[in-house]
């Protein structure tokens, strides 16, 4: 049983409460965008809501979930208490203060700049200061994770760091690299401008620094899902992980290739040349490799489980799997959504092909599927899985858990398939209201209503999720229990130093970043890089 249960639960409850509220905002947004009459239908309210929804889902849900799950993993996989619960709590309160500040800024209406806050449009300073505090809180988490792993290695010379912890630390290190870009943007460009010390901003530079963060951050969000695929799902299915080494290798490849690829978000930007766009496109293609490897390794682990349960033939093992278990069901649904979300991603990353979809509803559909779908459904499954060891209570019945997971997957498909199609028709992003009277836009109406229906299913599922976790009277207390991660077919006795630490990989990341981002950033310091006057949010 983890020692710091309250710490872990505090993180998870912040994540999940914010998540439910944000899901409600999401549905209201779908409603406003649709041809149906919605309450409070003004652009100011819409963008306030999208900022709240985006910040909550992308920054709060994820960061708090990952921190809480990281502490859980450190204690259960290493079987020792955290090196410093006091620091961990300090990180929690720092990040929570940041959330409070950011939320207050959004509520004031002075921060409707969306979660990407592209300058030279600017919000009230408290919006950015709050976000910085969230990041600082997460850096404390990174430090605790690094120390926990270092202590384990010192106490167990030569022993492999358990895969779940190795992956968690890979994510922590990646996060440190990731946040460098946006931190530099906020600290050196945005804060001086919003506090009034400078009047202009180099927008090309700010976009480039944000792109440094923008791709790797999605892998930061994705890591827990992959950790669950490798170290939880095989055991839940009654089998073992097919290959521990492939797990390590995949996590290392994510660390390497998530970072030097962020410029694929700038394919349509005028401030970069085709050369560097092409280099980063090629590196992006490489980041699909660890995902394809994962598809195989996890399929093989599941096949092993199915065969252990008596499954026969080429596909008979699939039927033999215990689909009634939430972790197994969620893994299946997550991979189903990954097919669509990953496929969309392959199109987005394809250089010239990005022009077909850039900044259309296709992109919104893509990231809701892969992030809201594949990733978040695994957050649900992880919560269900670890709840007994955290609270001494089982979540509400397994049947309601399954229903909740199904609703989420179905709702996500119903919401995003029409969105993909409309994106190809030219429906653009971040729109408070469409002019359905325009004959070029009118035909989109019915499909927008279909995706609204998908959004309603998602909200129902989100509420069910929290209800499943809430404590209830008359609940059976379970005996104290720890948590056991999946074993590998060949549990590693020793692993090569490179796959038991990160020194080599950090050096490689540094080299790759220099190649991918060196000149693209340097160019803004050569000659007279244009400066744009800042524009505090206006209009409406």
């Amino acid at each position, binding site marked *: 049983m983890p020692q710091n249960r309250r710490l872990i639960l505090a993180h998870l409850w912040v994540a999940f409460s914010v998540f439910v509220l944000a899901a409600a905002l999401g549905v209201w947004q779908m409603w406003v965008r649709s041809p149906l009459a919605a309450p409070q239908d003004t652009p100011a309210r819409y963008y306030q809501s999208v900022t709240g929804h985006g910040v909550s889902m992308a920054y709060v849900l994820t960061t708090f979930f990952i921190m809480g799950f990281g502490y859980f993993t450190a204690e259960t996989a290493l079987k020792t208490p955290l090196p410093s619960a006091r620091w961990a709590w300090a990180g929690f309160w720092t990040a929570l203060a940041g959330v409070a500040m950011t939320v207050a800024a959004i509520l004031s209406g002075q921060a409707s700049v969306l979660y990407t806050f592209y300058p030279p449009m600017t919000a009230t300073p408290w919006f950015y200061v709050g976000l910085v505090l969230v990041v600082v809180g997460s850096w404390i988490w990174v430090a605790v994770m690094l120390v926990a792993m270092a202590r384990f290695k010192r106490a167990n010379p030569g022993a492999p760091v358990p895969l779940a912890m190795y992956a968690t630390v890979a994510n922590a290190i990646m996060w440190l690299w990731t946040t460098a870009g946006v931190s530099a943007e906020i600290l050196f460009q945005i804060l001086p401008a919003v506090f009034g010390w400078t009047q202009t901003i180099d927008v090309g530079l700010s976009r480039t620094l944000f792109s440094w963060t923008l791709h790797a951050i999605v892998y930061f969000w994705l890591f827990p899902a992959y950790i669950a695929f490798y170290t939880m799902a095989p055991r839940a299915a009654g*089998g073992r992980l097919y290959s521990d080494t492939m797990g390590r290798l995949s996590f290392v490849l994510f660390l390497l290739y998530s970072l030097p690829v962020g410029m694929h978000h700038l394919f349509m930007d005028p401030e970069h040349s085709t050369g560097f766009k092409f280099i980063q496109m090629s590196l992006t293609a490489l980041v699909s490799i660890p995902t394809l490897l994962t598809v*195989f390794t996890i399929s*093989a682990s599941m096949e092993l489980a199915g065969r*252990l349960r008596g499954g026969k033939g080429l596909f008979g093992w699939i039927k033999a799997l215990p689909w009634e278990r939430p972790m197994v069901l969620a893994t299946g649904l997550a991979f189903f959504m990954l*097919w669509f979300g990953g496929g969309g991603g392959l199109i987005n990353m394809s250089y010239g092909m990005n*022009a077909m979809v850039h900044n259309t509803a296709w992109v919104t559909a893509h990231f809701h599927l892969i992030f809201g779908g594949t990733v978040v459904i695994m957050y649900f499954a992880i919560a269900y899985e670890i709840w007994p060891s955290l609270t001494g209570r089982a979540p509400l019945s397994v049947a309601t858990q399954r229903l909740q997971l199904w609703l989420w997957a179905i709702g996500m498909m119903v919401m995003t398939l029409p969105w993909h199609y409309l994106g190809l028709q030219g429906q653009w992003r971040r729109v408070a209201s469409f002019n359905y009277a325009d004959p070029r836009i009118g035909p989109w109406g019915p499909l927008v209503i279909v995706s609204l229906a998908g959004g309603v299913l998602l909200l129902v599922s989100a509420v069910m999720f929290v209800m499943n976790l809430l404590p209830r009277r008359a609940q059976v207390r379970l005996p104290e229990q720890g948590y056991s991660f999946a074993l590998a077919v060949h549990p590693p006795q020793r692993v090569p130093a490179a796959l038991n630490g990160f020194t080599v990989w950090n050096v490689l990341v540094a080299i790759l970043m220099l190649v991918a981002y060196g000149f693209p950033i340097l160019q803004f310091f050569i000659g007279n890089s244009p400066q744009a006057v800042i524009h505090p949010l206006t209009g409406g």
Partner: protein
Amino acid sequence: MHEDDHDGLTPAQIAEAMKATPRGALALAGITTGLLMAAWLAMYFLVFLPRGSVG
């Protein structure tokens, strides 16, 4: 490995189940990846290229 971590599977059971593994996984991953490539190529030829040159 911690004792209480053991999943109760015996080496003999695993060896038996590993005999046919990963043929099914290879088939499943192969088919889904194949379909994925087909979908990508369909978008490329049927939607993207007809929309014309830009640059």
